[in-house]
């Protein structure tokens, strides 16, 4: 309960934050949101089903390109293409995941890295003559929502974080269901899951498909946000970042993944912003005649080093991530009470029947 109030306050703070931030920082929040969405979709596959999937950028690319092509060649409004972008990314995932779904751990990891490279190279080589080659596709329309044109970072903020709210709502339900449990069972022990009657192949595939559908829809937002997309936006590194967010934040935990996105995407920006702080300190000291040449903004250049080290430390001391998933809650008391009442009724009826019989 207390936790829910904290989440609500944080959400409110986030919702009003654009009013106090300039376009640059709102755009940082937008990027955090985009990666959080992608990482949440990856979380179904990597976090819940425990499948080491390092190729999520491929599904993201398929979605973004679907939107770009449908919008620029067929003039379909951007947001209308969203379901289709999801659908096509999902179908693509079904196609490429089917043959490799039985692979385990590191083998799966290697093959899924291949997804990204194949998609990227196919896009560069202008497959079917519709992807625009290395230059990509430009001139994608801005999205309209209820007749309102979304253009500025402040406006995209509400599109992205609004989609986030929907996603969190739906994924939370998904986690706490027969479906979410099935993914966890096969992650914990897929022989035991299969032996308990769970079709593990099916659930692995569906995890891939739903994850891809979501990444594809995020691709739509990306295409609309950038208005120009190119193969280089969907390289292997993007997959690594998503992977890192999930593992660092907490595999299988929505709140963990969102925190992970803030840290991995937001922190380097804060380091960059620290340049002004170090300038301030420098000028302060120079007014006392001391020459300093601090530059905190260099931290942002070292961010890969910092994250690399952070990952290593995490894996040693806190390998479930910063905010690991909480155990699911079941209303056991209530259900027990209902079972007890039903049992009592049954016994009473039996006694009645017993009395009526001579």
């Amino acid at each position: 309960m207390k936790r829910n109030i904290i989440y609500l306050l944080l959400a409110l703070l986030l919702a009003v934050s654009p009013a106090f931030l300039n376009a640059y920082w709102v755009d940082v929040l937008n990027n955090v949101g985009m990666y959080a969405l992608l990482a949440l979709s990856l979380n179904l596959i990597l976090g819940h089903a425990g499948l080491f999937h390092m190729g999520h950028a491929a599904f993201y690319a398929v979605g973004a390109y679907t939107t770009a092509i449908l919008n620029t060649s067929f003039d379909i409004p951007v947001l209308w293409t969203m379901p289709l972008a999801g659908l096509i990314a999902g179908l693509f995932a079904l196609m490429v995941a089917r043959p490799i779904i039985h692979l385990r751990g590191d083998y799966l990891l290697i093959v899924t890295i291949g997804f990204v490279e194949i998609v990227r190279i196919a896009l560069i080589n202008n497959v079917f003559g519709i992807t625009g080659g290395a230059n990509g596709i430009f001139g994608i329309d801005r999205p309209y929502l209820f007749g309102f044109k979304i253009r500025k970072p402040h406006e995209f903020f509400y599109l992205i974080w609004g989609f986030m709210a929907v996603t969190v709502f739906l994924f939370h339900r998904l986690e706490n269901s027969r479906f979410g449990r099935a993914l966890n069972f096969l992650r914990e022990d897929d022989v035991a899951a299969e032996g308990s009657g769970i079709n593990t192949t099916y659930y692995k595939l569906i995890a891939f498909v739903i994850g891809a559908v979501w990444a594809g829809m995020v691709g739509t937002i990306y295409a609309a946000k950038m208005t120009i997309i190119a193969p280089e936006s969907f390289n292997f590194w993007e997959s690594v970042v998503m992977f890192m967010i999930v593992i660092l934040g907490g595999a299988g935990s929505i709140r963990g993944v969102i925190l992970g996105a803030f840290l991995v995407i937001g922190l380097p920006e804060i380091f960059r912003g620290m340049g002004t702080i170090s300038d301030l300190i420098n000028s302060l000291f120079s007014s006392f005649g001391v020459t300093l040449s601090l530059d905190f903004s260099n931290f942002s250049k070292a961010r890969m080093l910092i994250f690399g080290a952070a990952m290593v430390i995490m894996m040693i001391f806190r390998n479930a991530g910063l905010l690991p998933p909480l155990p699911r809650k079941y209303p056991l008391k209530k259900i027990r009470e209902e079972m007890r009442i039903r049992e009592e009724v049954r016994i009473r009826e039996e006694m009645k029947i017993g009395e009526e019989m001579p």
Partner: protein
Amino acid sequence: MSLLKLEKLVKDFGGLRAVDEVSFAVEAGDIFGLIGPNGAGKTTVFNLITGNYVPNKGKVIFDGQVLNGLAPNKIVTLGVARTFQTIRLFKALSALENVLAGCHCRMKSGSIAAMLKTPFQKREEKEAIQLALAELDFVGLGDDADTRSDSLSYGNQRLLEIARALATQPKLLILDEPAGGMNEQETDALIEIIARIKARGITVLLIEHDMSLVMQACEKLVVIEYGRKIAEGLPEEIKVNKKVIEAYLGTDDEEEGEACF
């Protein structure tokens, strides 16, 4: 018609014939024991029944249907549930959730129903939890519903596996060394639970090393050695069977052999 029938099952691992033309039939309602020395091929026979291995030759017929080649989850759905010789629980999850894994195959709601939280999905979820609690009660773990399964005692983990298997609503329950690692009281409780499983109309097929359990619980036995069936019959018959005694103790003193049972 027998509930389960094995017809000349063969399983090779490379050059090793782990199961060699094993045939037997389990009648509905039986508590049936499969015994034999270590490495005889008992677990392999179970894995052939449950679809974890595909036989090289022979047939597994359950309830009139040939199981060869079906996926393990399909076989569970048809009514064959199992436990594992080395405990295979979902360690990080609660006892309740482990049993809910068993409920899974009798439920229908998918991902979309979960996202929409349809009335059917909600009702089904509640019924599954009730069923899972009832199975936990059945094996005596009702108070441990919220406990992480890997913090249960060894004996209770075995019972939890049985509850998970029962939650699939099987016709045939296959137990691989259910008393492994249990102390005497726990074994006695297990024998009583097996009797209550039978009373529910579920047929039980079990592998066991604990001979007192086998002799107390089983109504019929098959003995295998080196992958081959060497004897079949009532416990009293098996107890005095020369071949069986030899298999367990070498060709030594007969008296000593009996003492072992």
